[in-house]
């Protein structure tokens, strides 16, 4: 089976069906057995304004990152697509509307800006949509039909996917979409003389197990449900809103409660309250909401109450760019807030690990009686993958509270000093298990205590949890472990890790001896493993999506040696092409 890899982008205006066309494409390709990763970008503004891009990567092999430049750009809207041409490969295909309803003024048509080397195919999208259904709404389906014909994709399978997508709608909607698709397909087959090499002919991968087509937000919600979440409080914010939306529907069905609060301070307050009451509780937010929550996060650590915050990062500071991805809440997640405030921070590296991280977060928060932050980002929240149906967590992860035994309850010390920093936790109402709980520094009973020795002892207790927490973290992912020495080691975190691992493969093809390291747990950090890895590498490169190199500064303190940084704040996910270029220059 030959390797096949293609990136298709659909660009239109909000409301033109750009995203739904991308979704149909992804579903169809997944059904055909291909690996897919798709990522949409759209404006924060209301529908009807602004540019939308549905980006889909389709491959016969494992996909690590969405890829930077597209092989095919379908332009549903000339104005927006002109700027999107910069994301099309030099020899990419442009599919555009050759019969728009109104003539273009000079330079207002996308094809006028295609570079020599790009191959453009004009399809009368608008005209064919009218022919199929009497209006322009089906242009997206006409375009999919055109692409299917151009790339030799099975039209019957595709129309089945359209029927599934619109299955719950009226028959006339289904028919209009299918007819529009077929118009595009047939017209293209008859009229376009293809001169490019892209083709799906003979590229049908062997059918795999049933796959789930899902994004990070959906997986977080699903994981929370299987991990016995019983309380969610939150305030909607892009890109985390979807988590709350799903849980508002599903959590009550599982016997849980969802509370929409007036703001994020209140949300985390309610979560800590529920945690105090012995419930598994969490909230999800983004940078600006997380900033408000830091008001309360210290309480979770100080009072040793489990709390989970999902922070899906977006470009900041402040309101920033709500629909653009960034990894710039690292500092704030790992050390934001007041005092010496250790907390666990997990940064899933791909869609699937959003599921694992959420289950782990609820478990660790409960077991270690502390705050756990899970750092997603706009890209992880929204990019769609087809993955194997995730396994249910084992019982260990579902009930992790260390409850006081009879002996403990004789003289119950809620903050008893233990080797691993974890004290038995009584749920309010436990006979004999009463205790004080405030945000003040306290003694073992929870009574306020400001003594020098007491503050030191309690601070040490809170930090002691870190020693054992690390043993519960999944092992860092290291590529190309079979060698002893590397010219370049890439250390990455969060959503950039996929691109880093992919780069290692392409670098090796170019003769660059490279490896990569990433850890889902970033606080506490597996420092020993990191140092061992770095010792094998002549040079270290740290790519991340923020301006100041937040993680690079953090890693430098551990490694105590200079590292090369690669920072982007383009609002787009990390691209392996950019990492590779940097490696060539190193």
């Amino acid at each position, binding site marked *: 089976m030959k390797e096949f890899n293609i990136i298709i982008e659909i660009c239109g205006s909000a409301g033109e069906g750009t995203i739904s066309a991308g979704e149909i494409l992804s579903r169809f390709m997944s059904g055909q057995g291909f690996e897919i990763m798709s990522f949409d970008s759209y404006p924060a503004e209301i529908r009807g304004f602004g540019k939308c891009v549905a980006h889909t990567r389709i491959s016969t092999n494992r996909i690590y990152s969405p890829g930077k430049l597209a092989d095919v750009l379908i332009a549903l809207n000339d104005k927006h697509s002109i700027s999107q041409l910069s994301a099309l490969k030099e020899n990419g295909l442009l599919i555009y509307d050759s019969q728009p309803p109104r*003539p273009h003024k000079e*330079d207002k048509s996308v094809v006028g800006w295609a570079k*020599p080397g790009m*191959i*453009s195919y*004009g399809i009368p999208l608008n005209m064919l949509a009218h022919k199929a259904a009497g209006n322009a709404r089906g242009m997206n389906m006409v375009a999919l039909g055109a692409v299917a014909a151009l790339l030799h994709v099975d039209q019957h399978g595709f129309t089945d996917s359209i029927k599934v997508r619109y299955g719950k709608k009226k028959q006339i909607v289904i028919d209009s979409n299918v007819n529009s698709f077929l118009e595009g397909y047939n017209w293209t087959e008859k009229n376009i*003389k293809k*001169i490019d090499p892209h083709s799906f002919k003979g590229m049908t991968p062997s059918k795999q197990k049933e796959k789930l087509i899902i994004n990070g937000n959906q997986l977080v919600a699903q994981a929370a449900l299987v991990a016995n979440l019983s309380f969610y409080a939150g305030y909607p914010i892009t890109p985390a809103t979807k988590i709350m939306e799903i849980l508002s529907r599903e959590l009550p069905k599982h016997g849980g409660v969802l509370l929409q609060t007036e703001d994020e301070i209140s949300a985390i307050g309610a979560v800590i309250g529920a945690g105090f009451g012995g419930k598994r509780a969490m909230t999800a937010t983004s940078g600006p909401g997380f900033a408000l929550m830091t008001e309360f996060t210290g309480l979770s650590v100080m009072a040793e109450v489990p709390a989970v915050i999902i922070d899906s990062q977006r470009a900041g500071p402040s309101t920033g760019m709500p629909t653009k991805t960034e990894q710039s809440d690292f500092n704030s997640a790992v050390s934001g807030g007041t005092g010496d405030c250790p907390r666990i921070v997990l940064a899933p590296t791909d869609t699937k690990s959003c599921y694992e991280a959420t289950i782990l977060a609820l478990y660790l928060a409960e077991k270690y009686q502390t705050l756990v932050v899970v750092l997603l980002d706009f890209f992880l929240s929204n990019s769609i993958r087809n993955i194997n149906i995730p396994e249910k967590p084992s019982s260990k992860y579902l009930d992790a509270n260390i409850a006081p035994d009879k002996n403990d309850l004789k003289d119950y010390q809620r903050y008893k000093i233990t080797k691993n920093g974890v004290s038995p936790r009584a749920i309010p109402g436990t006979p004999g298990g009463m205790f004080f709980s405030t945000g003040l520094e306290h003694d073992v009973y929870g009574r306020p205590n400001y003594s020098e020795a007491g503050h030191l002892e309690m601070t040490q207790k809170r930090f002691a949890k870190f020693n054992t927490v690390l043993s519960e973290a999944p092992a860092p992912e290291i590529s190309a472990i079979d060698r002893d020495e590397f010219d370049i080691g890439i250390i990455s975190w969060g959503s950039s890790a996929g691109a880093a691992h992919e780069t290692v493969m392409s670098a090796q093809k170019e003769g660059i001896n490279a490896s990569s390291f990433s850890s889902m747990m970033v606080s506490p950090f597996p420092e020993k493993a990191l140092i061992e890895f770095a010792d094998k590498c002549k040079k270290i490169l740290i790519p991340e999506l923020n301006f100041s190199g937040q993680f690079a500064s953090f890693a430098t303190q551990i490694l105590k040696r200079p590292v090369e940084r690669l920072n982007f704040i383009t609002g787009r996910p990390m691209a392996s092409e950019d990492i590779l270029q940097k490696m060539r220059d190193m």
Partner: protein
Amino acid sequence: MPFNDHYVIIGNGPAGNHAARTLRKKDKDAKITIISDERVPYYYKPKLTNFIADEIAKEDLMVNFLNSYKAKDIRIRLGQEVERIDSESKTLFLQHMEKINYSKLIIASGSRARVLPAMSRYANHLKFVTSYTDVMAVKEEIRKAKDFFIFGGDLVGFKFLRLLNSMGKTVTILIYPNAFWPYNLTDNMLAQITESLSKFKVDVIVKDDISIIDDKNGLYRVKTQKGIEKNVDMVFSFNGLIPNIDFAKGSGVDIDHGILVNEYLKTNVDSIYACGSCAQIYNPSIKSYTTSIGWPNAVVQGEVAAFNLLGDHKIIESVGRKYFDLEGVKIKTIWWEDIDDEV
């Protein structure tokens, strides 16, 4: 903002590209745009047959000297067909419904395959080798096919015949001596050519015509009026080239077979010039128009049209005399040459 001229060139062949290059050399500030309805950058048509046979790769088919349009600040619009010219408002109407304004225009739209009137009803069954797009449509099929029928011919047809022969294919050729392109063949020439072709695995049919071509299960049955019948995989037509000028109809530019231009390559409309194989050029010495053919002529004419558009008064002359070897027959040509790479 100072007003800069916008020179637009229709056509991305040798005439168009040499015109653009000359314009840029002489005028550093003007906006220059090349428009072509083909989707690929500037390439050597004469090497298309080598490309079919995989003797050269796509990269070697491309002409390199203008590959850096960006450096020369020449805007290139590919895959965009000019549908109509309005010479009054100096506007071009493109097929995808974009309008482009020009201050001066050079038409270098070349030529396309000529289909003989008798053959037009079989046009659906015929294949051509006139452009990269044509070739991409048939390349794979040629590789797989065994039996070919060629209506010919012309100079390219004979090149193609040699190619098929070298690929071990079986070929039948029907030569129309009275419709040979660009000159009719004399009986003498025809006899020599037939004799020369006898060393190949080729069936030559002369002094006959087609009575039927039909398509059965992907195979073509070709029957001549004298009753010869062949079953073949592909049928090709090589009957010369005719100027691409449909889009210029109704524009006010005078047209005959090609776009009529004077010896300075200017049309009857002040701001419009034409050159290369779309042009029919006035020759004062014979007081008549001749259609331009061949790559070297297109190059020279592109340059001359550009000079004159900028105010010069260069008279077009044909490039040096050559003899073209057509299967042993020396055809005197001032226009057709084996093309080496441009520098």
